[in-house]
C-alpha cells in the first residue's frame, strides 16, 4: 500500500513539475521513471499511475475551469458534444491512461 501511495505521489509531483516545461508526453515519461525507480509491482504501478494521472490532469483542468467560470470549457464541450464537466472528465481519463500505462511499463521494464 505504501509503495502505491508513494508511486502515486511521486508521479503527481514529478509530472506536475516537469509539465511546467515539457509537453503532455512528460506525464508518461515521469510515470515510466517512477515505475522503474520505485518498484511498486505491476498492479500497484497501474493503480498508482491511473490515480495520479486522473488527479493531476483532472484536478488542474477542474481548477482552470473554475477560475474561468466554465466559459472556454463549455465552448470546447460544444465542439466535442459534451459539457464543461465532461471536458474535465475526458481530460482526467486521458491523464489516467497516460500515467497508468506509463507506470505499468516502468515496472515491467525493470523486470526485462
Amino acid at each position, binding site marked *: 500500500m505504501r509503495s502505491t501511495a508513494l508511486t502515486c505521489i511521486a508521479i503527481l509531483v514529478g509530472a506536475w513539475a516537469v509539465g511546467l516545461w515539457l509537453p503532455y508526453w512528460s506525464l*508518461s515519461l515521469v510515470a515510466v521513471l517512477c515505475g522503474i525507480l520505485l518498484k511498486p509491482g505491476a498492479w500497484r504501478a497501474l493503480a498508482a499511475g491511473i490515480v495520479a494521472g486522473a488527479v*493531476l490532469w483532472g484536478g488542474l483542468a477542474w481548477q482552470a475551469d473554475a477560475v474561468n467560470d466554465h466559459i*472556454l470549457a463549455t465552448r470546447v464541450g460544444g465542439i466535442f458534444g459534451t459539457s464543461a464537466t465532461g471536458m474535465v472528465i475526458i481530460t482526467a481519463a486521458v491523464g489516467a491512461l497516460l500515467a497508468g500505462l506509463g507506470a505499468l511499463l516502468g515496472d515491467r521494464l525493470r523486470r526485462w
Partner: protein
Amino acid sequence: MRQIAIALLLLFVVSLNALLGTRLMVGDKPIPPLGHFLSPQEGFWANALQADRSPKERVRLKGLGAAVQVTTDAWGIPHLFAANDTDLYRAQGYVVARERLWQMDMVARAAEGRLSEVMGAATVAYDRAQRRKGMTIGAQASTDVMLADTLMAPLLKAYADGVDQYIATLRYRDLPFEYKLLDHRPAEWSPYRSALVQQYMVDNLSGWDRDVEDTHARAALGETLFELLWPVRPPGVVPTVPTDSLWPFEPETVPVPPGYDPGSGYMADAYRSDPANGSNNWAVHGSRTANGRPLLANDPHLGLFFPSIWIPMQLTTPENRVFGFALPGGPGVVIGHNEHVAWGVTNAPRDTRDWYRITWKDSTRTAYLYDDKWLPVQWRVEEVRIRGERTLVDSIRMTVHGPVVYDERFGDAPHRSQLAFRWMGHEPNRALKALYLMNKARSHADHVHAMQWFEAPAQNWVFASTAGDISMRVQGRFPNKWEGQGRFVLDGADPAHRWQGFIPFAHTATQVNPARGFVSSANQHSVDEKYPYFFHNAYLEYYRNRTLNDALSEDKRFTVEDMMRLQHSGLDRQAAEGLAAFLPLIDTTTLDADGKHVYALLRDWDHVARHDGEERALYQRWRDAVDSLLWAPLRKVARQPLGLPVPYNTFRILADPELRNTVATGLNVDPVAAVREAFDAVAERRRTNGPELWRTLNNARVTHLSRVPALGREELPVDGAGTALNAQRGGHGPSMRMVVELTDPPQAWIQLPGGVSGDPASRHYDDLLPGWLTLDYIPVQFLRDAKEAREHGRHSMQLVP
C-alpha cells in the same frame, strides 16, 4: 515471452503518445492533437487559466522611445497613451495582436490565398481564386507605395514589429485558442500583411459585378427587354449626393469607341463577394438637433463573425487623441472621432471591375491580339501549399489588362472564350495613409486633404466637426469611363476599351452643409444624372436610404436617442413596396379562408420585421417564390445563368400594366398568375407547416471565423431585415454601431455584436452582444490622459522600452 509482452507494452505506450501528438481527420473534421490540446498545463485549459489578466502588468516592448500605458475599461476596450506616433503604433500592434492575433493572421491568409496551409484541401479552390484574381498584385503594389512613403513606412514597420514582438513571446501553451484547435502556428507580421488586410476589405466591398451575366442577358433578350430588367438607373432612386447646384468643374471627357459585339459563352465569376456588404451613415447639422451640436451615426453591415470584425480602442499621443474602431492588422482607427471631428463610412458601390475578351493567336493561348499586334502572355506562377498534400503549382496568364482568372486549368471548360480581369484592386492603394491623416484631422479642410489618398475601397465618407460642419464625400479612385464602359465584356484587342484615366480628385461628388440640414448614405446610387461622369454598378441599395432620408426630413430636433432608434429600426421599406406591388394583383374573392387570413396578415402589417412575428417570413417566402416563377424563363433563354433583376425593378414592373405586358410578351410568362401562384404556395406552406417566425427563417447569427458552430451564436432575436436600417440578414448585419455628438470634446456611444477580445475563454469575447440586441449603447470613455486612465481603468499595462 515476457520480453515480447514488455516490448509490445513499450510500443503501445510510445504509439499512444505519438498518436496524441498528431492531428487526425475524422471524415472532413480535423481533430487537434489531443495530448497537447487536453493537457491542462499546455492545452486549451492553459487558455482558460490565462483568460483573466492580472490588474497590473509591465511588459518589455523593444524599440519604444518611451513607456506606453495601456488601460482597459470595464468592457476590455484598450486606451493607449504614447509619447509619439511610432511608439503608439508599435504598442497598437502589440495590443491588437494580444486580443486578435489569430483573426488578423487568418484574414491576411485569406486575402493572400494561403488558407490551405492551415485548412488543407478544402480551401484550395478559394486560395487559387484569390491569387488568380490578383489579390497579391494589389497588396504588393500598395505595400511598395506605402513603404516608399517616408511618413507611413516607419509607422507600418513599427506596427508590424509590435505584432511580431508579441508573437515572439508565445510558447505553445500561450498560443491563442484557435491555433491549438486548428493546430498551426502564427505567421510573422509585416507591412505587406497590413496591406493584405486592407486588400481583403477592397475585395469584400468592390469584389462584385455582373458584366458576364449582363453580356449574356443582352444577347439573349435584346436591348429593350434587357434595359427594362437591368436598367442603370430605374426611376425614383435617390442618390447619396444629389446635385444641389451646378457642379463647379469642367468634366474631363474620354473618347467613346464605336459599337462592338461583346460576344458570349463566357465563364461567370464564381468567386465574388457579397454585393449587399453595405452600411448606413448620416450626420445631422446642429441647426436640426436638440442640443445644437452636430450628430453623426454609422453602422457598417458586413458578415458577422467572432472575433468581431472591429476592435474599438483609444489612441493617444500628446498631439492627438482619437477613439474609434480599428481593423485588426491595420494601424490607426478606420471609423471614429478625435477631439475635433468625427467620421464614418459606408460602401460606395461603383463598377471598378471589368472583363476583357481575349483573342488568342492559337490553341496554346500564349499570344493574344492587342492593338493589331500579337503580344506574348506573361506567366505568373503561384505555389499553393496545402496541408497534408503536395504543393500545387498554378500558372496564370497575365495580359496588359490583368490576369486571365478562369482558364482550362481553373474553373472553365477548355473550349470557351477567355477573359482578362481589370480591377481597381490591382492598383496601388494608399488608403492607410488617408486613414492615418484622418485620425489627426482637425477640420473639414484636413478631412478633404486626407481624402486625396483614399483610393479603395470607395466609401461614402460622412463627416462632422465640433466647428459645426457636416459633409458627405463619395470617395475613391474611379476610372473615368465612357457612357456604358464596362457594363458588358470589353474588347481586349482594342486599346480604346482600356480605362482612359481617372476622375480627378477635385471632381469628387461631395456635399457640405446642405440646406436640408443632413447628409446620409446607404449604398444607393452615388450621384444623379446631372453628375457629369458615367456612374454604374449592377447592385445598389434602394430602400434603407429612403427610410433614412424620410426620418431625417421630419420636422423635429434630433437627439442621440433618435439616432440610436433609427439604427435599430426594423421598418422594412422593401416589404412595404413589394406588398404594395403584389397585393393588388390578388383576386381576394377567389381565396379560401386560409388564403384570406394570410392576405389580411400581410395587408394589415406595419412592415416592421419583428423577429417574433411571421409577417416578414411570409413576405420573404412570397417574394422568393415570385422571383422564381416570374423569372423562370430567364433560366431557359440562355445556357448560362443570368441572375435576377433587383426586387426594386421587379416591383416597378409588376405595378405597371404596360411593363407587365412587355415582360409577358418578351418572356412568355404571365406575371399576374406568377404572383398568385407564389401566394398560393406560401398559403399552402403555412397550412401544412404552421406559422413560421421571422427569427427562424432569418436566423440572425454570429459565426466564428473557423465555422466551428459551438463558437458561434444562432437565431438571435433581431427585429430587422437586409432592407431595414437594422440590416440583419442571416449572418450579415450591423458589424458595429456608433453615434457621436460633436460636443467639445465629442461624446460617442457604441455597440459591437461580440466583444473586444478574440479569445473564446474571455468574458469579453461576446459580452457586448446582448447590448447590441437592444438600445443599450456603451458611452465611450474618451480619457484625457494616462493619469485619468489610471483612475478609471480596470486593468493597466505598462509597455516599457
